[in-house]
């Protein structure tokens, strides 16, 4: 028991929390942006896979890591555009289109990977983002190794939370996005085009999701595997509800989930006689529990999943 508590005081646990949370932060922000404008994007799992493949491939073909992230974002944006075209102007089922995008993007990623890359028994590697040891700051006892020895995309993820929170809450653009998710008729009455706003939000949100996927292949690991996203996208969809559609809470949710995951990986090493499945289940189980508690008070965007048709009452 003491050992389990000791683990909590170990800085490496908290550093792992940030590493594990990074792809989730990008993913949950992306999903949140889409949903705030009124579009559910279940394409996330496939878009993250696409981002993981395209980001990696760009670097493998000679681009630098930043170009990799950028191209990954573009590829995610393209998938987002497809989802947006189907669900916004055409008003098709967002569930069906989203799941279709997931199937399509996952398969397309693997197909392109197989066409372009020759793979032996081990997939080829790239030189990934390395953890930065920020001078002076990383020497601060406790906080230093946790906060200031991460890879650059982790800082980018944290920055994105701030930017997203600011844009949504404090700018006219953010107001327009939120309003489109609540009452697109009112947006139209203001002389704005809710269809364009939704398309833009879905494209930008999907780009963020793809960057989350690219983190897996350019920082957390250095090769691509077709199944490597492993449900992280679906977790993000649940985290949006947990976060009650707010960026700050989304960060909290991602960190909480990552904490359970990092902690259970460590508990497996010190606690004996407990089936490992219980530990593996813990992050999901506790997230569902938190969801039940939090989601009751969540404020769902009024027009989420309601297609907007001009002139229709």
């Amino acid at each position, binding site marked *: 028991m003491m050992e389990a508590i000791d683990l909590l005081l170990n800085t490496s*646990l908290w550093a792992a929390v940030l590493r594990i949370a990074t792809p989730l932060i990008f993913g949950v922000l992306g999903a949140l942006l889409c949903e705030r404008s009124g579009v559910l994007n279940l394409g996330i799992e496939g878009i993250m896979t696409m981002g993981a493949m395209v980001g990696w491939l760009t670097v493998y073909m000679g681009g630098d890591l930043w170009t990799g992230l950028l191209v990954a974002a573009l590829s995610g944006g393209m998938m987002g555009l497809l989802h947006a075209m189907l669900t916004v102007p055409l008003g098709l089922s967002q569930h069906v289109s989203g799941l279709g995008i997931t199937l399509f993007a996952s398969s397309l990623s693997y197909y392109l990977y197989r066409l372009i890359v020759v793979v032996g028994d081990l997939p080829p590697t790239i030189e990934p983002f390395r953890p930065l040891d920020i001078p002076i700051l990383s020497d601060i006892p406790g906080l230093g190794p946790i906060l200031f020895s991460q890879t650059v995309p982790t800082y980018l993820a944290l920055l994105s939370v701030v930017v997203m929170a600011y844009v949504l809450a404090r700018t006219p653009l953010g107001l327009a996005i939120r309003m489109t998710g609540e009452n697109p008729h009112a947006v139209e009455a203001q002389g704005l085009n809710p269809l364009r706003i939704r398309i833009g939000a879905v494209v930008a949100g999907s780009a963020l999701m793809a960057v989350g996927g690219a983190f897996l292949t350019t920082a957390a690991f250095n090769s691509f595997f077709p199944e490597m996203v492993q449900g992280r996208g679906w977790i993000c969809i649940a985290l949006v509800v947990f976060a009650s559609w707010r960026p700050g809470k989304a960060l909290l949710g991602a960190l909480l989930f990552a904490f359970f995951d990092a902690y259970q990986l460590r508990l497996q090493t010190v606690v004996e006689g407990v089936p490992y499945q219980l530990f593996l289940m813990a992050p999901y189980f506790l997230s569902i529990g938190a969801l039940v508690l939090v989601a009751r008070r969540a404020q769902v965007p009024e027009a989420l999943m309601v297609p907007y048709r001009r002139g229709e009452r």
Partner: protein
Amino acid sequence: MKLTTNRRQLIVGAAATLALPAYIRRANAADVTRVAGVHMSPVENAWNSRIHLAFQEAAASGLIEYEFSEGVAPTDYPRAMREYAEGGAQLVWGEAYAVEREAREVAGDYPDTAFLMGSSGGPEGDNFGVFGTRNHEAAYLAGMLAGKMSDSNVFGSVGGYPIPEVNLLINAFRMGVSEVNPDATFLNGFIGAWFDPARAKEAAMAQIDAGADILFGERIGTADAAQERGVKAIGSLIDYTPRYPGTVFANAIWNYGPTIEAIVEDINAGNAVGRDYTEYSFMSYGGNELIYVADDVPADAIPPMEAKQAAIQAGEWDVPINNDEPA
């Protein structure tokens, strides 16, 4: 005499020329076994890659003709098996773990086709053979090397799921360590996925934080953590050393070639193939082997390991099989 060719002769001649390679192939095909592999995962996944490579080598040596499908979903799996059986494959290779009942049904419908399947169950009938994955002997020997290399005497391992083939491998590694290092303590983590290298890496990090300085990597991603933290790792199934030089000092390699040779021999001899081919993965058949970097290993660790290896190969001693989930 004037040599001319009329149109009819030209067409017949051209057709004959075009058909020639096919004719030669057919004439040769008499003693070449036609094999179809139905891979549920992509063939570059570690486990499948060993089998795929062995089939390719067998094809290159003229023993078999090999065609394959990969990434076949469980729901589609029986169809793919049937298609190859209908298409005249003499041996359909596959992995029945997720489709045990369906795979056996298909085998029952094609009694003249041989089936060889990775399976958790036993063989069935005359034509449904099974095999298990065994590179535990090499893992034991790797453990004997590792046992002498640790400063902390804490040995970690990262596995996918605790299925028997994974459990017995990790347990064999531990037995090997314990034979040369009675003070050894062990850590283990399962990640609940076959392909989540980022998570395997985190699990390995957790063990390094808990003091482990040698990790047995049943899953890819383990050695990445070892490399980043400057500790040592052991690879499984395939050779990880070129990817992690200086980090992965030993690999428990699985060779599928002996299994292929055994079943092809049975097919050619007209023997029933409804039996368990697991034994051909054992070291005495060359079915698994330890490869290691001698420069990275203390010199006094090698002779006892080699003595043990000789005893295993000679059949004088067997690595115990322990399917229990490692704690």
